[in-house]
C-alpha cells in the first residue's frame, strides 16, 4: 500500500474485505499485542455462530492474520485467538485505505 495516488477498491485486502472477516479482525484489533481471547468470548462479542466464526478464523489463519491456539484452563480445553503482527498491519492498511477512499485529498 505504498502507492497512494488513487487508492482504488482493487487495492483493498481481499482477505479482510469480506464483512464477516473485517468484523473479526476489527474486534481482535482491540487486544493488546500478544493478548489472546477465548473463542466463546469472541463469538459472543461478534454475535456469530460457532461454525461461522470457525470458518472465518481458518481463512484468517491461512493468511497468517490470526493465530489460533488450543490450550487447557484446568481440565477444560480452551481455544484462544490473537491477531498476529501481520494481521494488525493488514488491518491498519485496510482502515487507512478506507479513509483514503473517503477523503482522496487527505494524506493516507
Amino acid at each position, binding site marked *: 500500500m505504498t502507492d497512494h495516488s488513487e487508492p482504488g*477498491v*482493487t487495492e*483493498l*485486502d*481481499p482477505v479482510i*474485505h*469480506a*464483512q*464477516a472477516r*473485517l*468484523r473479526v479482525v*476489527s*474486534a*481482535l*484489533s*482491540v*487486544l*493488546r*499485542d*500478544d*493478548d*489472546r*481471547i*477465548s473463542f466463546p*468470548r*469472541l463469538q*459472543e*462479542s*461478534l*454475535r*456469530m*455462530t460457532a461454525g*461461522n466464526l470457525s*470458518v*472465518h478464523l481458518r481463512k484468517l489463519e491461512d493468511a497468517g492474520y490470526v493465530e489460533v491456539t488450543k*490450550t487447557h484452563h484446568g481440565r477444560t480445553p480452551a481455544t*484462544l485467538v*490473537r491477531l498476529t503482527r501481520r494481521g494488525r498491519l493488514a488491518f491498519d492498511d485496510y*482502515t487507512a485505505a*478506507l*479513509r483514503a*477512499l*473517503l477523503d482522496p485529498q487527505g494524506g493516507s
Partner: protein
Amino acid sequence: MTPTEDAPSSDSPSFDAPSSAEAPPVDPAESLALIARERANLGRELTPDPRLMYWPWGFAWLVGFTLFFLRFGPDGRVFVDLPAWLPLLTLTLLFITAGIVTGIAGGRVSRRITGPSNRQSLMYGLSWSIAFTAFSVVFAQFSSVLPEAQAGLLWAGGMVALTGALHMAGGAIWDDRNLFLLGAWTSVINIVGVLVGPGWHSLIVAVAGGGGMLVAGLIGWLRLR
C-alpha cells in the same frame, strides 16, 4: 449487521456486491462504522464496569471520612458524639467491601484475556497491597509517639497520598486519562487537607476525594455506554 451464512467468495473485492458475510459492506464509510462498532463491542467486554470499580470506594471515603469529621472535628471538636471506634471500624468494613467488589469485577474481566495484560493487572494489584502494607508498618512506628489528632492525620494523609499516586500510575500504565486525573485530583485535595489540618482533612477527603471517585465512575460509565 446480523451474521449471515457463508456466501461463495467473490474474486475481486469491490463495494457494489450485495451485503452478506462474504461480501464487503456497501461503502467505505459503512465499513469504518462497522470497524468502530466491533471495536467498541469487544472493548466494552474487556473493560470492568467503572461504576463497580469506583463507586464502592467513593462511597467508602464519603461515609467513612464524614464519620471521622463528625467525631474528630477541627481543634478537637465533637460534632456528633459517636463511639470513638465507630469511624475507623466503618471505614475498614467499607474498604473491605469495596476491595471485594472491585476484585471480583476486575478479575472477571481480566480472565477474559490471556497474555501480558494479565501479568500487568496482577502486578498493579500487588503494588496496592504491598505499598499499603509498607506504609502501615512505617506509620505504626510513629502513631504512638504522636498526639492523637496528628497520628490520625499521618495515617489518613499518607494513605490518601498513596492512593493518589497509585491512581496516577494506573493512568500512566493503561493510558487512562480519567484515572490519572482522579489520582492528581486526590493528591491535590489531600495536600490542601493536610495543610489545613486535622478534622478539616477528613471533611475534604470525604467530600472532594470520595466525590471525585463517584464522578470518575460516572464519567467512565457514560463513556462506555
